[in-house]
């Protein structure tokens, strides 16, 4: 029951965040959304992911958005009257069709929490059985992240490095050029 309520609250927050005219309020609601998402992930036993979302998702993303807002403008002007209805109608149509197709796709999915779902039968049992002996780490997520999929994490670091360079290049003052 609590899981259902949390998910419902997520939907309410998402709608509020995109409907809010004041951008600062929208960003704060997005922060609330991220924090509730962290709670949902704790409920799903994904504790490491919940930590990351609470610090990176709710913390750094909100901070970046506010920093961007401080260098631009706070209010949303809204669409022009002539184009507003046609554009949002087309968007609504696209979104509804995509959503319907995705919901049709879930009918073939294994049920939520099914221990015999294909995703839980391959590779994962091996990590759970052997990772402590092979890496000496008690947290399976850490073992996989830092050891088995270490190259993945290296790639992630490369992405952050590239993004950092992009941001520096984009925001460089003109006088330095």
């Amino acid at each position, binding site marked *: 029951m609590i899981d259902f309520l949390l998910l419902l609250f*997520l939907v309410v927050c998402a*709608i509020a965040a995109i409907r809010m005219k004041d951008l600062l309020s929208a960003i704060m609601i997005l922060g609330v959304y991220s924090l509730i998402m962290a709670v949902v992930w704790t409920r799903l036993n994904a504790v490491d992911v919940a930590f990351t979302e609470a610090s990176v998702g709710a913390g750094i993303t909100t901070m970046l958005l506010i920093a961007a807002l401080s260098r631009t403008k706070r209010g949303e002007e809204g669409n022009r009257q002539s184009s507003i209805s046609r554009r949002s109608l087309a968007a609504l149509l696209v979104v509804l069709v995509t959503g319907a197709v995705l919901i049709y796709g879930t009918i073939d999915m294994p049920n939520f929490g099914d221990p015999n779902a294909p995703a839980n039968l391959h590779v994962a049992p091996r990590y759970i059985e052997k990772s402590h002996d092979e890496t000496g780490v008690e947290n399976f997520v850490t073992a996989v*992240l830092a050891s088995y999929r270490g190259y993945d994490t290296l790639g992630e670091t490369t992405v952050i490095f590239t993004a950092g360079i992009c941001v520096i290049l984009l925001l460089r003052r003109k006088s330095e050029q």
Partner: protein
Amino acid sequence: MIELIAGKYNYWIYIALMMIGFYAMIAKGNLIKKIIGMNIFQTAVFLFYISTSKVKGGTAPIEWEHAILYDNPLPHVLILTAIVVSVSTTAVALALIIRIYKEYGTMEEDVILEMGEGETQDTEQRLHDLEDEIKDAELRLRDAEQIAKSVD
């Protein structure tokens, strides 16, 4: 039918979240609103991914002597990486928005597009004027040559 709903309603809520973000990305004119939509879209995908790792009766994937069943650790690892990458994309997108705001003085897509169209029209007009001038100059040159011949 009830079994279907009980087993799948989580997925449907994730899809609803994802579509809310998707709608914001298409329909909202403000660029920051588009980024907010993108964030909602991304977290919905993460939520879907994490939910596939949940096993009924499983505990968190950390070694524990009383545990009978563990949740699948692999999706958690993948989503940890994805969250950090999503923050990087957000940062680059925001930097681009700041540049656009400096250049155009607005974050509204419609206004920026109109300005772009206005600029192309101006350039086309200027090109047209220049072509006319060239034609005039050619005509004058021919006249001058004819005059020169008649003088000879």
